């Protein structure tokens, strides 16, 4: 596709990872055929010529960046990403799937009272979300030292790298397996539909039509979607 008709296409950025499958299912259920997502996860771009939609596949964390810069008109992103990093985008819909919670967790056997007492030294917290964690503990008035990790945060308390972790949980199984218990829930999260601020104006009708279709579908099927 050349640049000239790039602007005729609605570019939708799908996140790879956990939200990929439900995103594909969502678009299929409103009549956009993505062939179940087969063969596109490797190619990174995919066209629907009839509907004039171009799908691109991004790393989940990069998704809002593509949308903010206008490389994509629409994106699907976990709320955790939006909370951690402020982006100048329209947040249009709560998609009600990819539901999870941002929590504080620590090794089993403790109570919140125990963990939230400094006892003369600062508490160590490991997390992929230093901004969210920092804000949370700030509001609570608890003095912590944050360590940014890029994955497998559950490991940190077991090896003495941290007293607590801040992370997202969906089923809680990973926490359990690592002998961690939730000591506080920070915020519930779900997938969000985001739109570039200019596309929201210049491609308004297409954006709104699409989001209305999705909205209708979500309210009909919200119970089922939650299971995805």
């Amino acid at each position, binding site marked *: 596709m050349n*640049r000239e008709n790039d*602007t005729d296409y609605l570019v939708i950025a799908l996140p790879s990872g956990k939200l990929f499958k439900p995103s594909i299912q969502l678009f299929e259920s409103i009549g956009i055929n993505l062939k179940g997502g087969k063969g596109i996860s490797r190619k990174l771009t995919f066209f629907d010529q009839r509907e004039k939609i171009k799908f691109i596949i991004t790393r989940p964390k990069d998704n809002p960046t593509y*949308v*903010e*810069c*206008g*490389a994509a008109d629409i994106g699907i992103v976990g709320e955790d990403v939006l909370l951690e990093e402020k*982006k*100048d*985008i*329209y*947040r*249009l*819909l*709560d998609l009600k799937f990819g539901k999870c919670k941002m929590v504080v967790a620590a090794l089993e056997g403790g109570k919140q009272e125990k963990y939230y007492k400094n006892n003369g030294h600062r508490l160590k917290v490991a997390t992929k979300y230093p901004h969210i964690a920092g804000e949370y503990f700030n509001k609570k008035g608890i003095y912590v030292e944050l360590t940014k990790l890029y994955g497998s945060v559950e490991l940190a308390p077991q090896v003495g790298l941290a007293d607590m972790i801040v992370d997202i949980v969906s089923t809680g199984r990973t926490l359990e397996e690592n002998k961690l218990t939730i000591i506080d829930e920070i915020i519930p999260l779900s997938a*969000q539909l985001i739109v*570039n*601020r*200019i*596309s*929201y*104006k*210049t491609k*308004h009708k297409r954006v*709104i039509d699409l989001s209305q279709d999705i909205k209708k579908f979500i309210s009909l099927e919200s119970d089922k979607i939650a299971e995805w």
Partner: protein
Amino acid sequence: MNIPKGLNDLLPGEVLKRRLLESRISKIFTQWGYQEIITPTFEFYEILAKGAGSMMQKEMIKFFDREGNIIAFRPEMTTSIARVASTKMQLEPKPSRLYYIGNVFRYDDKVGNQREFCQAGVELIGVNSKEADAEVIALAVESLKNSGLRKFFIDIGHINLFNGIMQSIKVEEKRKQEIKEAILNKNFVLLEKILYFSDIKDDEKEFILKMPTLRGKEEVLEEVEKIINNELSISALKEIKGVYNLLRNYGLEEYILIDLGIIRDFDYYTGIIFEGYTDYLGFPVCGGGRYDNLCSKFGENIPSTGFAIGLEKLITALEKEDIHSLNLERPEQYLLYYQNNEDNFKKALVVAKNLRKKGLIVELEAEKVCRGVKIYSL
């Protein structure tokens, strides 16, 4: 051997394009009677902070000088020019028409993480009239047109449309702040939630949710007129209408849209606001509006309006629209070499002088070098 994050060295090819664009734009500004002004690259933080909201204050790049003053790099130009207008040009007959082309600095430009970027813009100082608003918007259109951009829109709105609605809804102040913040952050998911739990009339809820989507020609005004009933918003609508009609006289209506969803980042706006969009950019290419209270922070009450164009953004848009739009027709360029021979050298000097007089570009070298420039044989 690096430079700080977010800064750039511009190589000659990029500089050529930048200067070409600057000359196209400054030509139009000058033709409309605007005179160039240059203010310092950094100033006292205290002064620049007067024009910046709390967000922008955080984004300013600051340092201490030897005397212990806090200094900041300018994050935009309007505040500096308002300072000059109120403290050094306050006695000059009004209106003053001023323009600038200069670099501004922010920690986070949001897009591309650039910390230094170039803005070209104008300030029309000392008039509060719809004619002044229309002139500045018309000039924004002409500047973009003359830069070579073909497909773009200027959206015009008014700061008081939103303010009026927020004043008129009867809901506690804390809620109001939440609603405002959700709208400023463009978070409709949160906005809907807040409204759902707020004790606000249904038609007002509906309008708050609908407002950001109202964009189009005059029919938008008619649609809104039916809904709003607070004085502030009604007079704002009237102003938009007035400016729109004047822009029609300019013959520019094809470029203009009325847009009730415009939100500008700066706190100093008091009236008509506008932004320019192209299909090729995910963010505005230019923006501006009326700021009647900024100068009074420097001691003089001077109503003003203006706008700024982001030159890097405009270059990106121009080249996406047409890769050749910033190709400059340069005079022919020659290489003269004199084979390290003294007689040849003297001869070469004369030839070079004559060719340069004709307007050609001539480089002189002792030996032949290969750099893709035509060779001129003696």
